[in-house]
């Protein structure tokens, strides 16, 4: 059976062979060592993690990882199953960029003198929707939340004006099509798995896979 005809990932076309950005969302127990257990699934296959974020989720006590990698669909699907197989992982989803709402936060430290003297800098900051989070005599720290291209563009724009420090967070992403994990968790907590719990990826390839 050819993959191309039978697996429709979600609403949009997926390039099965070519690499593209995927955001993997992992719901897991908050347990020491789990980050390593997940990370080595990538390093074992010599796959670079573009960004990884670990935070609380919508449910108290359940952690949510966002992992961004650039890989082909087939590779990502196999990785997702390997991650989901880990004992403390509840569920794994993977999505292309058009299936998620995502942001990265960037901080920029620039010389206050430069800002004060050169109007163009201020204009640049406004243009990029930056907010000042710290203003001191010697430097000012601006924050921008957005997509990679947006935060990158501001770096480029600030380069001529003494960008003293720059840092960017990992991606955090919300799955557009998700109804959250509350209902799912109830199924997981049931002693006997119900029909709903078993997502049959093998027969329902036409349906949404690893999405809610």
């Amino acid at each position, binding site marked *: *059976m050819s993959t191309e005809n039978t697996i429709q990932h979600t609403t949009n076309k997926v390039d099965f062979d070519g690499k593209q950005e995927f955001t993997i969302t992992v719901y897991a*127990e908050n347990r020491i*060592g789990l980050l390593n257990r997940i990370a080595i699934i990538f390093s074992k296959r010599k796959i670079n993690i573009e960004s990884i974020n670990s935070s609380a989720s919508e449910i108290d006590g359940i952690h949510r990882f966002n992992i961004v990698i650039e890989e082909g669909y087939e590779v990502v699907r*196999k990785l997702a199953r390997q991650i989901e197989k880990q*004992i403390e992982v*509840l569920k794994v989803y993977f999505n292309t960029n058009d299936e998620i709402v995502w942001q990265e936060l960037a901080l920029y430290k620039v010389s206050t003198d430069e800002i004060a003297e050169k109007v163009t800098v201020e204009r640049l900051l406004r243009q990029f929707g930056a907010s000042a989070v710290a203003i001191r005599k010697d430097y000012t720290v601006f924050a921008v939340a957005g997509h990679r291209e947006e935060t990158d563009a501001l770096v480029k724009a600030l380069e001529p004006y003494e960008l003293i420090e720059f840092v960017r967070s990992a991606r955090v992403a919300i799955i557009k099509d998700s109804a959250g994990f509350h209902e799912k*968790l109830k199924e997981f907590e049931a002693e006997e798995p119900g029909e709903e719990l*078993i997502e049959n*990826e093998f*027969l329902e390839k036409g349906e949404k896979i690893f999405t809610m």
Partner: protein
Amino acid sequence: METAQDTVQKTETKSSSLQGVGAFKGTGSQVLLNGLIEEGVTTIFGYPGGAIMPIYDALYDYADKLEHILVRHEQGGIHAAQGFARSSGKVGVCFATSGPGATNLVTGLADAQIDSTPLVCITGQVFAHLLGTDAFQETDVINITTPVTKWNYQITDAKEIQEVLAKAFHIAQSGRPGPVLIDITKNAQIQIEEFPEYVKCNHIRSYRPKPKVRVEYIEQAAKLINEAKKPFVLFGQGVILGTAEQEFKAFIDKSGIPAAWTIMGESSLPTSHPLNVGMLGMHGNYGPNVLTNECDVLIAIGMRFDDRVTGRLDKYAKQAKVIHLDIDPAEIDKNVKADVGVWGDCKETLPLLTNLVDAKKHEDWVAKFKEYNQQEIDQVITPELYPTTDEMTMGEVLRNINEICDGEAIIVTDVGQHQMVACRYAKFNNTRSNITSGGLGTMGFGLPAAIGAKYGAPNKTVIAIIGDGGFQMTPQELGTIMQFGAEVKILILNNRFLGMVRQWQQLFNDKRYSFVNITSPDFVALAKSYYIEASKVDDRANLKTALETMINHKGSYLLEVMVGRENNVFPMVPQGMSVSEIRLK
């Protein structure tokens, strides 16, 4: 410190059951051992050391409940636990201390992980307050073992012990089994607490050992099978791990489909079954390999399409529709795309499938396997089993074993040529009789695994077939046999080479025999120095008698058989070639 005996007497009123069982006040070490007893553990393979001393101190009082086998190296301990698990179907348990004790477990963990063997390994660890200080015999065991365990956990507080142990046993043996490691800091081992009654674990919210089977899978699979003209079954260890041997046989008997095995699945269907067409893969049988690329429906049951089974993937069964039954969803579509993936425990899925498949015979198709088999018999098997050369072959040794044991023995092998010959030619009547290091290919596995296999199946004859190279990797376990009297029959097939590597160097490296010429000690003298009866045979005339002497001997025995130096194992699918390009010579 109170002893377990004292504690139990004091708490007798609370607990009416066995020694140490039930709610009681005691140390972390005692509650650990009580938990092991609750989980049905009878045998532990281990080696003490500084960081696990409190557990060993407690063990002193449990001699009547827990049998501890003192191995000679922690790798031997874990391989023995693997052998125990493989022959008995129970969870194998081993103990090791921190640092080198724990790192010596790594090979066995990797082996158990890749071969899905249920183990619970307990390691001692330095005091919690010393973690991260490079204390004496401190290693980061949790991180070292993460890639080679199904689950691992570090306990720093005795109050965690019961829950973690219960989880460990549940995880190790449910779903796709695997090794679990629990690292316990020394302070937790000596910590005194009021412990509640031990409660077994049967549910972890983040862990789904197996799904509820969906009938749609079964119906689709049955439809493909019923329409098939040339269906072919491949079965692996999943049949054994799921204790689905009867269900599997019923499926084969009704559907009439020829079935071939991976070496991990070998003994789940008797060798003599008319539809058992033999071994898959690199040194498997001719028909099963060639006909993989002719069948129209390939039904894989509890196997994972290892590269040694499939050969070149892009030329593997491309003409066939693939049905894959597996309990691990990560295996389905991993190497070979399944048209129908039947996710579930084959103990449950196989009977459902058997109900829906038509009773058939497939006589012409089965006859094709026989035709290929006849070619293999003429060109490979007969010369191997009934050689006319002066030198003995490994195959004729196996033929003699079959004649003596008639398929009733447990055969444990090491890794290499002798392993392939043993898997190819040994006869098996019973499940869990072929114990070998399949996925990892661990030389040195054979001797310790055979010790464990004997403890797991004390009424069986256990024969460890080992090469001269592999034997020299873990010979220290002769000491364990000496001390505890494990009745293991050790058969060394000595070709004075690292034979499998030599075979590859002959075939693919222009006979450049690079460091495969291995010398051996006097194995007979070595065994005798451990007070183990031993002998050596180097001519065919004495072979059978020597084997009979070994097998009938009361107690352990070592027999060294000198076999041809440059005997090769055929057929062979050269690496990177398709299964249909299998060579008979």
